[in-house]
């Protein structure tokens, strides 16, 4: 009997744990949620929405590629710069339109935007299952997600031309995607923005600055319309109009949207051009869509740079080794070109607001350490000592980036009306001119021809200097125009940044994307 007792005890010891094995091994993360218990509440929906917004401020997934800086470097407004040709060599090559297909900047720009698209897609899939007390709030969230998806696709199609169009989260069997017809991508962008235009609120309270509004959607749609017309049709050879649900978007639709923004949005030009810039003027009444950065996160992690809330353009733009009471130093990227400096009319007050002229301001720094040095830096987002973040300053500069402001809508309006309402065009154009030169300024007269368009282009170049607008303006007038302008800003080495029409101004499809997708993606022309 004793032996039997021993065995009983032993068996209990040995196998006792067995009965509770499933509980013992069943674990949930202690600090994270999993997909199974998320996407349930309005709060979850908002967090999921914020995660899409987050991607707006990503600039350095692979290398450093802020949208505005990359756009400036591609244009005739700036060179790539840095400390030398080996400093961000991918940016350097990009400026020369001879990117390697393996350059990390091309991959980073691509991946960032598709991350935003993935987050928008999963949001749009999951939001149906979430109960909202207020259906209008749900509509607003959906419209914001669609705006952001359209926004990311627009940047993608601008950079790469031929991209896969993905509108849902993909399962393993769907991983191999081919590039969509660019026309379909533009139409999808228009569809998302039009939905946002219809559903988003017009008024964004101060507490919600940064959230997109109806007016942001309209302004972006106008920008998309013009780029589609000029570049999509003119260069990529799209034959159809921008179309949503089989209904073409006409020029008068866009003109109406532009008029509404100008007349009804409550947005207005800031009276003094200089008051558009700096931390004290963020989200001003002229700003229609602005990407939010802050130094408040004050967080440093070089290994996960997208995790900070800072604006990389700032540190990248500063001259190298500056000692100055006002201006801080930076990495010397995107030196502004002499060609841009020359574009400003004498006495244009926007020059000294937009361009830091080192000689004129007696800046003490080391020009010899600045590659492709011009003596000019962009000033709108130039790092200033007064705004310097306390720790990890490189990562945490808090200057917001304005994506689109009323002046742009006015000049787009002028351009749209050039062929059918010259008076209105002149009125919109003059608002921008007079804000710069004063109300007594007599603006040149627009004409319905190339000269009229050139006047608007000149205005856009100086008004938006350093804001990343110029390159896309060049492209939508065709490759010859872009080549002529960009080559005119170029000179002997190291300023030899000449346009390569074979690339159509596009970046290469990242080589790794082609390889991983099993060579289904086709490389853009002009790249090997």
């Amino acid at each position, binding site marked *: 009997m004793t032996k039997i007792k021993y065995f009983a005890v032993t068996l209990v010891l040995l196998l006792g744990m067995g009965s509770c094995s499933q509980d013992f091994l069943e674990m949930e993360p202690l600090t994270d949620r999993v997909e199974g218990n998320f996407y349930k509440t309005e709060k979850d929906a908002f967090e999921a929405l914020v995660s899409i917004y987050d991607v707006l401020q990503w600039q350095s997934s692979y290398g450093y590629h802020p949208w505005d800086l990359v756009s400036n470097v591609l244009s005739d407004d700036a060179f790539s710069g840095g400390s030398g040709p080996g400093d961000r060599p991918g940016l350097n090559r990009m400026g020369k339109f001879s990117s390697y297909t393996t350059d990390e900047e091309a991959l980073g720009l691509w991946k960032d935007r598709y991350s935003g698209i993935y987050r928008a897609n999963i949001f749009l899939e999951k939001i149906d299952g979430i109960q909202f007390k207020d259906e209008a709030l749900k509509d607003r969230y959906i419209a914001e997600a669609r705006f952001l998806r359209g926004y990311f696709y627009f940047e993608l199609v601008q950079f790469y031309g031929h991209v896969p169009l993905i509108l849902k989260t993909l399962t393993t069997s769907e991983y191999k995607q081919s590039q969509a017809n660019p026309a379909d991508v533009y139409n999808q962008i228009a569809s998302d923005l039009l939905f946002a235009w219809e559903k988003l609120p017009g008024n964004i309270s101060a507490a919600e600055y940064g959230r997109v509004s109806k007016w942001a959607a309209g302004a972006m749609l106008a920008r998309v319309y013009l780029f589609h017309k000029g570049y999509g049709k003119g260069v990529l050879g799209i034959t159809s109009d921008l179309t949503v649900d089989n209904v073409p978007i006409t020029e008068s639709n866009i003109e109406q949207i532009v008029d509404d923004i100008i007349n009804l949005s409550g947005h207005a030009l800031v009276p003094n051009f200089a008051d558009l810039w700096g931390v004290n003027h963020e989200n001003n009444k002229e700003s229609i869509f602005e990407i939010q950065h802050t130094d408040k996160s004050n967080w440093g992690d070089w290994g996960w740079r997208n995790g900070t809330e800072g604006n990389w353009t700032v540190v990248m733009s500063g001259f190298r080794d500056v000692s100055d009471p006002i201006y801080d130093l930076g990495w010397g990227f995107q030196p502004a070109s002499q060609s841009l400096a020359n574009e400003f009319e004498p006495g244009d007050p926007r020059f000294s607001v937009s361009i830091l002229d080192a000689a004129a301001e007696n800046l003490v720094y080391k020009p010899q350490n600045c590659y492709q040095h011009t003596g000019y830096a962009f000033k709108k987002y130039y790092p200033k000592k007064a705004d310097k973040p*306390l720790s990890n300053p490189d990562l945490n500069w808090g200057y917001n980036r304005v994506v689109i402001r009323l002046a742009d809508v006015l000049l787009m309006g002028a351009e749209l009306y050039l062929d059918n309402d010259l008076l209105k065009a002149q009125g919109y154009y003059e608002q921008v001119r007079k804000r710069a030169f004063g109300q007594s300024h007599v603006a040149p007269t627009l004409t319905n021809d190339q000269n009229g368009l050139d006047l608007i282009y000149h205005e856009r170049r100086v008004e938006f200097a350093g804001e990343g607008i110029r390159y896309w303006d060049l492209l939508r007038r065709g490759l010859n125009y872009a080549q002529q302008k960009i080559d005119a800003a170029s000179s002997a080495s190291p300023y030899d940044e000449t346009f390569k029409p074979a690339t159509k101004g596009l970046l290469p499809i990242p080589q790794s994307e082609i390889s991983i997708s099993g060579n289904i993606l086709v490389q853009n022309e002009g790249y090997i």
Partner: protein
Amino acid sequence: MKKTLLTLVLITWGWVLSAQEITVTGTVISASDGIPLPGVSVTVKANPSIGTATGIDGRYSIKVDANATLLFSFVGMETKEMPVNGQTIINVSMVEATQVLDELVVVGYGIQKKSLLTSSVAKVGSDEIAKTNPLRVEQALQGKTAGVQIISNSGQPGDGLTVRIRGIGTNGTSDPIYLVDGMPVGGIDYLNPNDIESVQVLKDASATAIYGARGANGVVLITTKSGSKGKMAVTYDYSFGLQNAWRKVSLLDASEYALIMNESYANDNAAIPFADVASLIDTVGSGTDWLDELFYKNAPVQNHQFSVSGGNDNSSFYSSFSYTTQDGIVAKGKSNYERYTYRINSNHQYGKFGFGNNLSYSNKKNRGIDPNAEFGGPLAKAVNMDPLTPVKYADGTWGVSSYAAQEVVNPVAFLSVLHSDYTENKLVGNVWGELELVKGLKVKSNFSIDYANGNSRTFTPVYDLGGNIKTLVSEASVTENRWFTWQNENTLSYSNQIDLHSFTAMVGMTANKYHHEFVGGRKTDLLFDDFEHAWINNGTDEESYRAWGGADEHALLSYFARVNYNFNEKYLLEAVLRADGSSNFGSNNRFGYFPAFSAGWILSKEDFLQGFTPLSFLKVRAGWGRNGNEAIGAFKYTSIIGSGSKYTFGSDEVITVGSNPSGIPNPDLKWETSEQYNIGIDSRFFNERLNFTLDLYNKKTKDLLVVAPIPGYIGNAAPTVNGGTVTNKGVELELGYKTSINKLDVDVSLSGAYNKNEVTDINNAEGKIYGAGLAVGMSNICMMQEGFPIAYFWGYKTAGVFQNEAQILSYISSDSTVIQPNAKPGDLIWVDKNDDGKIDDNDRMLIGNPYPDFTAGLNVNLAYRNFDFNMFWYGAFGQDIFDGTRRYDLPMSNWNASVLDRWTGEGTSNSNPRVTIADPNKNYVNVSDFYVHNGSYLRLKNLTLGYTIPTTISQKVKIQRMRVFMSVSNLLTFTSYKGFDPEIGAKSALDVGIDRNIYPQSRTFMFGVNLNF
């Protein structure tokens, strides 16, 4: 499961009843000192399968036939034969032998006679460990056991070692599992090597299958010392050493630097930076030797170790204390290690009930620099910093380079602002009880804990060292980690013998749970400006307060069974089955089953070999088994919702949390499985003087956990999938010879291992997994690809240097395309692998393998009268090193002196290209064989000479035994590699052999004394 077990128990119980013999008991002592010997094997000569082993008190009890003859055998002792002749008490004293006859080895959940093993198990005993005075256990294993490759991750004190058993089978965690007295522990650096009785390495799957889902990378079983009956033994050991770099890398001095820089710019048709070299040299002389500034000459290392052990008939104990300090040879004051250890082990036996406990406490404190990093490493800064900048200017401020940039700043100044340390307290212990229910049937229960607490503290002062190395505000931060693991293990074992049939059966279960949590905080703008006062409360910026924290858990539940059978100790069989459940896997695949089978045949016991006198012992064995690797991190099977996304809203800039899936989930994820075949021969010749062991293995790891890259347009991080296979095939041999010539004892052993690694399958579109690169623009130096060794170097092959324009124009593809039309004379010739007339990623190929083909260790022990001598050589052959020491992306970085052999005109060099800053041919940008060097080396790891003071003298001062010794480690190194050190560990499975200016191994001269009271 339950039913099977019950049946097994009932069957085995039935066999107990058949035993009918007399019981012989006695005590076995050592003839030399009269101390009882535990673990002595007692067997019946006519039927060696009847046997037992002495307990910790040297006592044994065995039931045998009244006319039997008993054999007493023990490691290092002459086997003794004692006829029973009806006696019931037989006491034996054993004399030391020069030959090892039959060892006992620890196997998973048990002890086995080495002669009866059917699997490949290597053992290193305490005497061997003691010979080289190692500071870490792994060092003692290096080169001692064939097939166990041990590479120092760096020479930094306290830095880990990479241990690879039979090659590398996975792109994930390939560390073996370490069990200390049965408790799995993450690492073994907390152990005082002197506390170790033996280390056994279970190499093949038939040995490791009993550890199921954690055994795929091999198992290291460590047994700590226990006391023995008799007089209390007290020992004290002290050693002191001075360490220095074994070599210095040769860099350019000031004038050479100016020459090369001028030439580089001139080659680009750019203005030269140093127009007046002569006056420059007048000012700076040969310039600053940054390496001289960074190395700490005669860095001290010392070790105190004190132990007491003893016991009586029922109980024994072992207790020890040790204190070790080591300064690093680089970065004085910023790279050092300090460790206290304390241990108490005890064992008790009361009749059929035994119990014991082991408890160890350790406290270690590390300060460290980044030992192999292109950005953060001080050595990388020293190597790349221009020699023109002084350490300090005349006014006492730090020298700031006008040439180097980014992370390359004054390394001495950099060290002065590095302030951090890490302190870890660790408690590992277990308590066990064992009861013999009936003869041969034992139940054992073991409860273990592993508790550790780690604290890392950092102080960042305000500094600006130029480049991007600067901070504007001082900061104190601290992070506290706490780990706790408990394990409960229960086994039931039964052994018996019926006639010539002998068998042992064991079943058991184990439950293991791990919990980790951490909390940390920081605050800036400190009241004080030093490390001592760098506590969070001294921060003054209230806005800067930050706190962080988190926790994670892991659980493992397993059942296992093993059966050993032998016939007359001639034919041996073993079968193992383990079922493992892990919380790392989804409910689709929670449990896995791991079987193994092996068999052995002791040929030397066969009649047909009896007449062959040179042969003492010969066994052949073969086995097959399956293992798993569950170390893939938690919750990879589901999609975690990360809250790291943030965005700022509102005029008040409110940072708002966003959440999204952090990756694509894979609910079908399961462990990696490794299957291994092993064939081995164990043999001894010439009256046991010569021993020879040979093993052949073929190990295939399947279902590798790979993060197969997915296109970026999917929009989220790739999932972990089971998608790869790696095979390792190899040969291991161990050869030993022991003899005594007059008074000279000679013991020579040689171990060698050849391993061939090949990735046989990768389940993604490309058949590739991209590995590490250098963050300076050289991507994917390491590559994992079907048909190649894991982590091979993937790059361009060069075919010399273009000597002239004509050669460039004649370098054409088969369709007559000039392949490098933009090259200049002096540029490297790239091999156009696919003959498409251009050089791109498709031309990259195998240019090197970071793993050695062959590793070998040679150990020579000599003893003559009172002198003892140890010499240990270790060599690794056939591996390559990728030289990633220079920051080519910063044009003004200094160069290794080998640049002086560059191409400067036709015929000057056909291997080293011209120097250029713009580098249009990508001579220095491309990942190419230009950077790949033979990393083979042969190293005299240890040389020790000891002298034992004659007892007649030492006993006058009440010392039983007193030995003094001196030793040198790394005295000689033979290698063609020119970097700091050819020993470069793995940063991860796909980041291997890349030299980013590795912290080198030290050459240490050590003096010491061993005292026994």
